[in-house]
């Protein structure tokens, strides 16, 4: 039994190392308000005139290498504007229906930005398959948090020489956090 629990703890921990680091580092970024300074670039391209939003997005993805999740479109005189959102930034696309002229305003948030956005991506009903796959991974990581905690406590309990200080730390954790959670909920 101990060996099985130890292997589960090891495998889950190693599988999720990068994901857990991403959550922890981005949480520190948010808690300490480490500033994300976007790099903005602008360019113009020409697409097929008279397109609706989704066909235009597909054309820009195929011909101009844009990626991201399609956001809500806003009507403009003679055309519309919509964002393509990635973890690392957003491309605002302004389109003129009559001429097919497209203005691209790309904001790139760098590593901090990607970490921050990955922290917030979730859910199983997104538009893109990749985002939904990430959502499943978030679900797996969330369940793994309980499993890592549970298997960790089990293995600690089996280490007799660590029981003394461990009981103090675990008790302190339980007492303090439960009191604080109850106080917060009151």
């Amino acid at each position, binding site marked *: 039994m101990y060996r099985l629990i130890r292997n589960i703890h090891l495998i889950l921990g190693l599988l999720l190392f*990068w994901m857990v680091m991403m959550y922890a580092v981005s949480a520190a970024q948010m*808690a300490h308000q480490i500033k994300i300074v976007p790099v903005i670039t602008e360019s113009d391209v020409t697409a097929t005139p008279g397109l609706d939003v989704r066909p235009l997005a597909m054309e820009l993805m195929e011909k101009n290498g844009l990626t991201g999740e399609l956001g809500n479109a806003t009507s403009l005189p003679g055309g519309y504007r919509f964002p393509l959102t990635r*973890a690392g930034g957003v491309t605002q696309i302004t389109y003129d229906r009559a001429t097919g002229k497209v203005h691209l305003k790309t904001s790139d948030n760098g590593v901090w930005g990607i970490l921050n956005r990955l922290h917030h991506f979730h859910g199983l009903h997104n538009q893109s398959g990749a985002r939904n796959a990430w959502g499943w991974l978030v679900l797996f990581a969330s369940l793994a*948090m309980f499993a890592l*905690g549970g298997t960790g406590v089990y293995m600690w309990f089996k280490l007799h020489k660590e029981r003394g200080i461990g009981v103090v730390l*675990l008790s302190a954790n*339980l007492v303090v956090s439960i009191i604080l959670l109850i*106080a*917060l909920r009151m």
Partner: protein
Amino acid sequence: MNAWIKKIHIYAGLLNFTILCVFGAAGLVVTAEAPDIFHGGSEPDVSTVPFQAPGSASDKEVGNLIGAQLQPKHAGKANVRRNGQHQLEADFYSVNGLVRATYLESEGQLKVETRRNSIWRFLDNAHATTIQETASDWAPWAWSRYIELSIWSLMLMALTGTWLGLTTRWNYWWTKASFIAGTIGFAVFWMVEK
């Protein structure tokens, strides 16, 4: 050295066990898209209280005065804005949901709506209560410090655990497979999403 690293890994884990569970619960809540305070189906508690703002006060100052009078629990500073009827609304968000005060100037009253969230959304908010929290009472202050400790502990646990796994059990097939799979998987998502 690994004996000490193992101790650090165990102690950090035990000291943060509950918060790890809160982090896990927060992930489940957002994955399941548990309804927030506006979509939970329950009506807000509504009451009115007398209130009169000084004639020369700005909206922000009025918001602060409303906060001083209502003292909504665990809430930070007021977010003030004007609604469709040009009435001043002061929102006080807390880990438990929202208290919205609408200033009915001609009546000299505040309409106070209290929307309390579910226990699930409470846990989600609790996991995001960091040292940036502006609420001044002791519970959010202490909890946010505990979250701060847990953020750094989580990094420490991940680093020490991975070090221990890779150095002491490298010959175990699953050690290599799980670390490589996790690394490749994360790298793929990074490339796709960046």
